């Protein structure tokens, strides 16, 4: 049986062109392995950057709107390169923590009725000292040291 005439214009077999040999497939697997190793290396670099950033001393700063905060309310402010949560526990007491949950970094929120900090991602709970009450977080929340200067509330240090 002779080949049809159009075969002369399309000499390459589509099936053969897309055929992947076992050797090529195994080499591509090796490339995937290399990519996974490179990704792990990149994470090591990011971790080193984090450590370098944590080593830089943090400049104290005033927290805007802190003294006007109602009792039982909270506000988010930036300090030490990360979001922090300021809570007015009562008329005289304030507490501030790093807002990133120590489990996987989700932002925690303040629950006024229970006076707890709550991570909605994986049901983590922290008390007003930052200690873990329940859930998967492995470590307490970092505390922000507060100082009252006249009519302003200042964040002076971040305990990591």
């Amino acid at each position: 049986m002779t080949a049809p005439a159009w075969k002369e214009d399309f000499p390459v077999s589509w099936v053969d062109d897309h055929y992947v040999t076992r050797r090529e497939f195994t080499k591509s697997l090796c490339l995937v392995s290399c990519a996974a190793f490179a990704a792990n290396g990149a994470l090591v670099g990011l971790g080193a950057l984090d450590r370098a950033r944590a080593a830089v001393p943090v400049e104290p700063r005033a927290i805007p709107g802190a003294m006007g905060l109602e009792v039982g309310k909270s506000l988010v402010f930036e300090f030490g390169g990360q979001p922090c949560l300021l809570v007015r526990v009562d008329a005289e007491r304030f507490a501030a923590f790093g807002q990133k949950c120590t489990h996987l970094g989700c932002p925690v929120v303040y629950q006024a009725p229970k006076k707890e900090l709550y991570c909605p991602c994986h049901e983590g709970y922290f008390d007003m000292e930052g200690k873990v009450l329940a859930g998967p977080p492995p470590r307490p929340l970092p505390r922000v040291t507060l100082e009252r200067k006249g009519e302003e509330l200042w964040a002076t240090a971040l305990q990591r």
Partner: protein
Amino acid sequence: MGNGPSTVRSARRQQAERSNDMTLIHAVMVCIILLILIQFLLLMVAVEGLQGGRNAILLPAAAGSGLCFLASCWLIRYVAVRRAGRS
């Protein structure tokens, strides 16, 4: 029986060698896939560690991933050298 080595291999012997080669390549592919799965597991652990601020886990995870990658390369090289030696 002749006195010197035979220069012509029998078809059956060639078929057996080819079958052994295919088995070896399939075994290497399975091993490499397993190593890649381990690497993805280590990558997942490293990402969770970085997100949770546990930086101490990053270097061991990267070292494990590197070992898996070296093992994959060694397996491929082993097959290539074996086939080159046979041909």
